[in-house]
């Protein structure tokens, strides 16, 4: 992701969505609506964090593994070194 001439390096769209997803998830669970919702005497605020314990790394692993899948599915014209752009 070089994008020369741009002020910012471009982040992969899926990585960007992943980071934004974490950001909004945290915001949602820190809003006051969740403070008094209790499950097994434990606030939903805590359950939100506990779900994140496995959700974030699991999604992170899936993103990286599928990244490899994409790179291994190179189109034939790329593997032959032929440019698609005419």
């Amino acid at each position, binding site marked *: 992701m070089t994008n020369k001439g741009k002020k*910012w390096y471009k982040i992969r769209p899926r990585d960007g969505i992943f*980071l934004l997803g974490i950001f909004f998830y945290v915001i949602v669970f820190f809003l006051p609506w969740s403070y008094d919702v209790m499950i097994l005497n434990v*606030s939903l*605020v805590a359950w939100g964090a506990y779900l994140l314990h496995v959700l974030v*790394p699991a999604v992170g692993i899936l993103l990286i593994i599928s990244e490899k899948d994409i790179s291994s599915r190179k189109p034939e014209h790329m593997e032959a070194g032929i440019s698609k752009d005419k």
Partner: protein
Amino acid sequence: MKIIELSVVVIYLIALIILGRVTQKRISQSQAGVEEYYVAGRNVGTGVNSLAMMAALGSGGSFMAGTGTAFNLGLPFLAWMTVGSIVGFSVASVLVAKPLRNSRKFTVSEFLNDRYGHIFFKVAIPIVIIIGSAMYLMSQMTAGGLIASYVTGLSYQWGLLIITVVFILYVSMGGMLAVTWTNILQGIMMVALISIITLGGIFHFPIRWSEFFANTFAEQPMLGAVGGTMPITAYLGAFVTWAAAICVTPHLIMRIFTSSNARSAKLSMNISMLMYGSLMLASTFVLVPFVPLLDSSLLEATHSDMWLLLIVEQFFPAILVGVITAGIMAAVMSTTDALLLAVSSAFAYDLYKGVYKPKATHQQILRASAIFTWVIGITVMFITLHPPPFLVVLYTAAVGFMVAALFAPLVFGIWWRQANSAGAITGLSVGAVSFMVAFLGFELPYNSEILIALPLSIISMMIVSVWTQGPSQNMLDRMDHYHQDI
């Protein structure tokens, strides 16, 4: 004295020293001595690095102290503090893993020096790392001293001395290679033993888990409530501190430099956290309900960080308690040795070679590293002999201080082409100073200093970078290269 437990622990400690000696021989015979010492030859595979990363993060503060901390400070606080570091690894795998690994540097300081090329960073970054990591190191050494005291029956001070000498020995001999090998061993032990402890707890539930768990709230009514033990600002502060910390904390981020490639680094960061998160979840929900069953006078007489061992003693025979104690000691030591190496790297590689003696030979750097490891280890040990009562506050503050100072220069330096040395100097200074002012000068809620210092650091760095001349084309070309898939 607990003879069986002590025997198991002594065998384990001797194994660590032997491992240090073996790695020292390997490094002295290797052509790439410094590369072996600091980044374990850059060929650590994904599975192995995952275990080592989990071991470097999983410390006395999490696996050992988690049960007591959750009971005293409440589940919501501990949940957000723990998940902060889990999210932090995933964030770091996106934001910093590839450029750092592709740069082929040895330390974060070296990367930032390369990015900004200003003498200020050669001195300021090692100083920030030394201050932050040394405070962090103190808290881990305290946990090590407590557990050594528990096993040997000796005083805390003697326990601390024994444990300090062992890990200084193997870190000074084997460097990162020894730390990696021991972290693998420690990681395996941690996974196995936390699983065994959790299973032991499950088999010893006196009643159905849901009822057992509900009974805990009779003893500690604020266990699951928000704001019961501390304000919600503290949850957010702890989460933000750890979520940002992984990008800049040297003893964790140096695992990226040891990876065989960038993809392996990213994958191992997430795998390690899946293991860590699962273990923390299981151990919290299974073991915390056992705390009210312990005798209240025993709880009062024992440091809450050690309550886990009191629970374990109820489930298992002495020999297994010995193995478990060694495993918990492994959790403490795996963080401590990585921290010690990070601080000695800051002295030997960044200050000694980077500033004082740029033409130092590999042998001189290795010798300086060994000397600094001893000096730092013993100095921190003496301070920890009489630990201040606010150690937990210091420990999180140490991490927060490093985040406030280094996050903006590192992450914006990687992603923003306009980031320049003037902006980074400003960001680092504003972050460090504002954090210290907020921490020392104001009565803010626990952990919340970062919520002020980090935005100030980012904003000041951006303003100054925009208004001053951008970095050279040569440097930008190097950054372009670091962002490529190599």
